[in-house]
């Protein structure tokens, strides 16, 4: 499923647009409305965040969204049910979850139920290459992907091993640090890294962390296959619920999606 999404975008000479949404923030109804809005707006893949008490790869925006979601008692089970409910009406959904909820749920069970819910894969930010084998195998056994992250600090030989092991796509972290809109990436080195990763693999390269504006998207210079926007999107609908949130999301993503096209190679 994921491969198709990137393929289609590539066919349309654009980068895939991958919004990140925290499930259950502030309630599941709102998330559902947002998912549908994103789908309508033309998102290619959706990252669906699973709330976690200790999101150490996340900046304040996503961390706060997770706190709100926990207050609405959203955990992995509820997120899977949501994904299942939306599967027919949405582009491919990739879960974004920390490892511990998965571990408690049971790794095998997680893979099975995620597959049953129609989910395309899982990004687990605190499981880097070295700890990924078991989870990757379990997901793969269910036909699910496990994108891995490459960071600016990742040395080249290690990056080669990561892109090798990643499935679905490679998540290229745009800058040092955590998610959040505070400081924009430094695009020159990012472009260099994308070019060098491109030499290593044909797998789609999706860039995330800190992208918030159409200009950021354009700055990627079409070197990436996809663009992840999370914190900025959450900021855009924070405080709103249901249809009101959906409306704001629609307004917010339109120019970003346009920017994915605008760039000339």
């Amino acid at each position, binding site marked *: 499923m994921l491969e198709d999404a990137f393929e289609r975008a590539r066919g349309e000479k654009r980068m895939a647009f991958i919004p990140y949404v925290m499930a259950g923030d502030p309630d599941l109804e709102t998330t559902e409305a947002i998912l549908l809005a994103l789908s309508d707006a033309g998102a290619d893949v959706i990252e669906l965040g699973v709330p976690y008490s200790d999101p150490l*790869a996340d900046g304040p925006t996503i*961390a706060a969204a997770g706190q709100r979601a926990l207050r609405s008692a959203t955990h992995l089970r509820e997120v899977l049910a949501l994904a299942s409910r939306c599967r027919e009406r949405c582009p491919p959904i990739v879960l974004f979850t920390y490892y511990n909820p998965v571990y408690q749920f049971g790794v095998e069970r997680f893979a099975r139920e995620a597959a049953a819910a129609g989910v395309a894969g899982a990004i687990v930010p605190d499981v880097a290459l070295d700890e990924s084998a078991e989870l990757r195998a379990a997901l793969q056994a269910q036909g699910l992907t496990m994108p891995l992250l490459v960071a600016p600090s990742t040395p080249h030989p290690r990056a080669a091993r990561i892109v090798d092991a990643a499935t679905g796509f490679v998540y290229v972290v745009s800058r040092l*640090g955590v998610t959040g809109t505070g400081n924009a990436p430094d695009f020159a080195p990012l472009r260099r890294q994308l070019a060098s990763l491109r030499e290593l693999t044909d797998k789609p390269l999706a860039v995330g962390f800190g992208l918030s504006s159409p200009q950021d998207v354009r700055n990627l210079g079409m070197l990436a296959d996809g663009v992840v926007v999370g914190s900025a999107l959450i900021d855009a609908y924070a405080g709103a619920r249901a249809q009101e949130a959906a409306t704001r999301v629609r307004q917010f993503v339109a120019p970003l999606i346009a920017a994915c096209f605008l760039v000339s190679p």
Partner: protein
Amino acid sequence: MSAPDTRGYFGDFGGRYVPEVLIAALDELERAMMAAFADPAFWAEYHEVLRDFVGRPSPIYRCERYAADVSSVPLVMKREDTNHTGAHKINNTVGQALLARRMGKRRLLAETGAGQHGVATATVGAKLGLPVDVYMGVRDIERQALNVDVMRLLGAQVHAVASGTQTLKDATNEAFRVWAQRVEDTFYVIGSVVGAHPYPFMVREFQKVIGIEARRQTLERYGRLPSDVIACVGGGSNAMGIFSGFVDDRDVKFWGVEAGGKGVDGDEHAASLRAGSIGVLHGSRSYLLQSAEGQVRETHSISAGLDYPGVGPEHAFFKESGRATYVDITDAQAVEAFHAFARCEGILPALESAHAIGFARELAAQRGADDLILVNLSGRGDKDIGRC
């Protein structure tokens, strides 16, 4: 020296569950650490600072009155409370800061709960001229205002962490986040035998001096090894520090004392090993207190330094292998031990250490003159006055 495997596992516990952005830094740290550990000059410098700056060796002290009514067993305290800054924490920050300097790092970063580790890091940072940023939960900043003042006097920046529980757990998350941003020039000084590999191993090696000294001192003074070694367990560094000096002495029993809070049957405690389950927190797999859904639980202990939902992976390994036994002491028992010990021995123990001391009295009742109980008195209690 029993090291973890190459992936940082002690049996099933440990590892490296951190974002990719930190992996290179952990690799760099591991390489630098191994090089330093193999370099006698590094250890010479470490021991010189421990001697001149920290005041090591810390003494062992035989109690005269505290448990004399229940037992004739020699009850011996390893006096980490006499260290500069008043706790064992500084052994570790000295080691890590010297390593940071050796690696050419320009700044230090630390999380802190009670503030003891923050103070110990600020202290070493001041001495070495390395700027220090300390992350501390808003609630802890309120509860431990004095230590905040100390850190600031030492020139450290104390940053308030308002997310999550606003305590140590979230301060640690925040420290990881900040480290991820500054990973190139910043050394993250973790305060206990927790975190991603190589931290649990490295911190243990820096705290091992406690056990090495205590073993030598006990043999010198009493001509025999202890029958039992007792230490409180928060993250587990003071316990691992003293245990590791005796790890090959198979007859020496290890007792880790966790914070029983208001009772381990309820929710208000911090006894990860006694009442938790296996999971992943702050970079390693170990025991932790969590909900069925894998959300990390809020904990409670009267002693801020034990008020942490996780525990070092090597303790989890010791629990599984049976090398150590983990027990708990409640808030009320710890407070009672604090008062009794102060009045009987003229030493105010840290509330953390009071947990070990409380259990020691219970164990003493089952031991005799041929045994010898060694307790790690991990810190002084000045910080706890007015709290019990």
